[in-house]
């Protein structure tokens, strides 16, 4: 993890098409807002006809791509990325991890109809020997 010299924001590397991009992290506030927005856009989709849904989907993708490009430090990397997307070598889904800080997105929630995973057994570390204190009998001077 390094820092962006322009803003001191922490950065992380992300590899796409053999090129390593330097990316900034979204703030927690931005990530929360984006999650809310995606939820809103998806809800709007359910209420629209097919044409409107396509339009909203396209708008959402453009917005997501804009966000991703905002996180890439080097404008040269942005230009490279756009070129690769035009060539069909990179899809938006390949770039989504950038929003999540380079990791895979939130794991799927656990299935409610599956048994819980067994807890890991406590490690059997060797017990420290207990110091035995032996009460010394007091010497009684007779």
């Amino acid at each position: 993890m390094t820092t962006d010299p322009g803003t001191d924001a922490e950065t992380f590397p992300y590899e796409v098409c053999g090129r390593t991009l330097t990316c900034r992290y979204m703030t927690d506030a931005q990530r929360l807002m984006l999650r809310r927005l995606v939820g809103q856009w998806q809800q709007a989709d359910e209420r629209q006809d097919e044409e409107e849904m396509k339009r909203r989907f396209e708008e959402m993708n453009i917005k997501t791509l804009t966000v991703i490009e905002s996180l890439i430090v080097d404008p040269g990397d942005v230009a490279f990325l756009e070129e690769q997307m035009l060539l069909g070598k990179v899809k938006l889904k390949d770039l989504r991890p950038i929003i999540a800080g380079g990791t895979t997105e939130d794991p799927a929630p656990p299935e409610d109809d599956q048994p819980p995973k067994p807890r890991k057994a406590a490690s059997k570390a060797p017990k420290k020997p207990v110091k035995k204190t032996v009460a010394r009998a007091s010497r009684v001077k007779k």
Partner: protein
Amino acid sequence: MIPNLLHVTRPSQVTVTLLGRTWLLSGHSAADWIGGIGWDVDTLLGVLPGMVVAQQLEELFDLSWEHEDLSTRLLYAAQAAIGKAAGRDWIWAYNLSRKCLQGWPYFNGILLGRGIRADQVAYPDWLDAAYMLLWERGDESDRKALDFELLLPPKNMSVVASAASSRKMLEAFAAD
């Protein structure tokens, strides 16, 4: 405008000024506000941007890229929002909300038994009820300790304490 003190100090709809604009927050009930605080008690993200109304969210998101100090500004605005929503000093409202969150089954359980539902009662009214619950179950010493505890600026976050809250804290300390 209705000249009503309670309407003014305990508005049903809260707005905050942030980045030069006015933002409307969606919280109404105690559950909205306490839940918003509880989402992240250190950053108050559940209040801001969590409670910004849907119609303004995209605008705030677009603006967030232009301000590197947004996290700090959001925190301060969230603190102000809590104070406005509670009709009290935000530190008092935050501390009491957090205290209730920590013992939620206890507080919520007793107030439910009294017919006070967090999802139906306004935030300031619920805080009044929770405060009285603590107050009536303590003796004089407990009440003084409670009042002092509620006025202490939270250690877990940067605070813009109002002059009024600082004065109250000093008065409470001096009374001790």
